[in-house]
């Protein structure tokens, strides 16, 4: 059943066994996992079923670090940020979950095998099944192309599988509406997570609608699933009993904010004969009902030997060059044409099929893992929103470690491109030492309620339960101790499925 909090009688009090705050991919996945079971679920969504300006404005805040689109990078209505999701799906790599001695604060409380158990089911939910993210042989068979192992051993192929993309609200809304044990409470902004006087147990959620009505939800267990920016904000705002906020005894809530710097224009690749490159290297191909494309990732051995963060590169076709045609961009075109002409005997086919074709230019994209940094953080601003709540304040920071890693990986990719024998890569990094004042991210919000079994090092434990509070859990990217370089939605869904199993094992 869908309920509109704006239309309930004043000071309504709803009850449930499990209250889920946030109806994005994580919240909806958790609610769906309970359909048909004995647990009565109340799934709370701050927005309605469509984008609404005043509700969306509640995401606005202040930046004191790298400029970041706080309201533009997420959506506050049913389905959450899946409503503008690009659909990129890839798993983390095993090394992403390991404690890496060159990376302080790395390491998840469990290994990749634990997460792997849930990736196939997660792949079904985001409509990219079967999960074949690292299976080169599978993609070779399905695409009909020769996908050789990368020649140097320093890089590997990983495959991005593209969700349609799944708009969770549209895709699963009817199912939730029809479920007898699920109530979806729309236009319900949580203003406070109310705990007992000893701070060890959550009793209620205080709710406010934008038309001024106030309500509350009582439940036995609570899951916070509002995303990596809002999760810490709500914990910090809920400070009527614990002044520092919930789960914040060790001043960790909000810290370790991580994004995936999505950088383009760092370089380009020219190939005299694009037919010598597998198509899946530079475009997505339809396979078994979903599109997929290759990405280039460093091998574990290379990461360990060079003590680097992880990264993901993609290539995309930008333009071709023909005899007699002026390049679209004269400056860069002249450079490309010189390299194509000079290197054609070294990289091209001996007898080109088309003499008029000089070669192609492929653009380079990359998503970088960010090192966990406690000083990169979500805080509360002094300014309040229309509900009287302090707005978010983000201090996103990137470091020399992040930059050095990216530059080193660019060089490695360039060497791999050369070793493939089919093209040449140009690196175009303005300043290898510093990050620019504005860095595009992937709308990936991670790390701000990180997992660690030690309460002095994490906000939640390995089961995503908030330390010190027996019935409050958090799910989503905010629990990631490290970010890896893979797009996080698939892992968020997998982690949530894991949480669902845990809650069921506890009789919730």
């Amino acid at each position: 059943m869908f309920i509109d909090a704006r239309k309930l009688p004043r000071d309504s009090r709803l009850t449930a066994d499990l209250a889920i705050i946030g109806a994005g991919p994580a919240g909806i996945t958790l609610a769906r996992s309970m359909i048909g079971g004995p647990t009565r679920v109340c799934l709370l969504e701050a927005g309605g079923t469509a984008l609404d300006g005043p509700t969306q404005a509640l995401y606005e805040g202040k930046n004191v670090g790298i400029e970041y689109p706080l309201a533009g990078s997420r959506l506050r209505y049913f389905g959450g940020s899946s409503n503008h999701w690009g659909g990129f799906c890839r798993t983390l790599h095993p090394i992403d979950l390991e404690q890496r001695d060159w990376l302080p604060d790395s390491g998840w409380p469990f290994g990749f095998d634990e997460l792997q158990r849930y990736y196939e089911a997660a792949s079904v939910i985001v409509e990219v099944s079967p999960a074949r993210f690292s299976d080169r042989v599978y993609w070779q068979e399905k695409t009909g192309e020769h996908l050789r192992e990368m020649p140097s051993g320093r890089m590997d192929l990983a495959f991005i599988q593209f969700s349609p993309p799944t708009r969770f609200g549209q895709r699963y809304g009817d199912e939730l509406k029809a479920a007898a044990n699920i109530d979806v409470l729309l236009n319900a902004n949580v203003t406070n997570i109310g705990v007992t006087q000893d701070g060890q147990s959550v009793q209620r959620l205080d709710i406010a609608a934008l038309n001024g009505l106030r309500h509350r939800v009582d439940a036995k267990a609570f899951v916070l699933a509002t995303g990596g920016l809002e999760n810490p904000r709500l914990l910090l705002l809920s400070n009527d009993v614990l002044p520092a906020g919930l789960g914040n005894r060790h001043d960790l809530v909000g810290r370790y904010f991580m994004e995936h710097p999505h950088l383009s224009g760092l370089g380009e690749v020219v190939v005299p004969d694009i037919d010598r490159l597998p198509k899946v290297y530079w475009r997505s191909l339809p396979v078994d009902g979903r599109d997929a494309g290759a990405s280039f990732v460093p091998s574990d051995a290379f990461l360990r030997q060079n003590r680097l963060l992880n990264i993901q590169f993609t290539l995309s076709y930008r333009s071709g060059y023909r005899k007699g045609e002026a390049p679209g961009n004269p400056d860069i075109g002249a450079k490309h044409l010189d390299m194509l002409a000079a290197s054609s005997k070294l990289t091209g086919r001996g007898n080109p099929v088309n003499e008029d074709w000089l070669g192609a230019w492929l653009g380079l994209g990359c998503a970088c893992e960010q090192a966990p940094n406690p000083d990169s953080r979500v805080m509360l601003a002094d300014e309040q929103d229309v509900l009287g709540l302090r707005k978010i304040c983000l201090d996103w920071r990137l470091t020399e470690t992040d930059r050095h890693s990216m530059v080193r990986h660019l060089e490695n990719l360039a060497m791999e491109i050369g070793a493939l024998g089919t093209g040449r890569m140009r690196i175009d990094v303005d300043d290898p030492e510093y990050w620019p004042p504005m860095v595009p991210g992937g709308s990936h919000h991670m790390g701000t309620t990180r997992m660690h079994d030690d309460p002095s090092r994490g906000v939640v434990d390995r089961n995503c339960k908030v330390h010190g509070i027996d019935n409050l859990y958090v799910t989503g990217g905010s629990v990631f101790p490290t970010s890896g370089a893979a797009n996080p939605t698939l892992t968020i869904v997998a982690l949530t499925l894991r949480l669902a199993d845990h809650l069921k094992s506890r009789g919730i």
Partner: protein
Amino acid sequence: MNNIARRHVLVSLAAMLAGVMLPSLGPAAGEVPGSQAVGLLNILVPDTAAAGRLGRAYLTAHPAELDVQRLVDGVLGPMRLSGGADAIDSTPEAELIARIRRVVIDDYLAGRIVNIDGWVLSITEARLYALAALADDKVR
């Protein structure tokens, strides 16, 4: 290009570019026209003007490489053609190209690279383009 002409191109290239008189190997070294020198490069580098622009950038950034013999040795040495100039003369063009391709790939695999105007290139390839730059300047 016949075997004798190739051998003299190789020797004459070095001589011509370095301005050094070498013992005659038959036809006088200095009598080999510039176009024959370019012809050798054309086996491996079809567009010497384009390659020359890259080569000039390389030599500007690495002035210690402005040594014709060093450049020649740097290209031919890794190709492992036993017998020096005679081996070049007797090796089919397709084989020369295959060898230089292998050398360049090995450079990338081993990390023997240089950066020329952002391009990440094999050191052997860069030296080849440097030779093209010198030949291009000389021919003009």
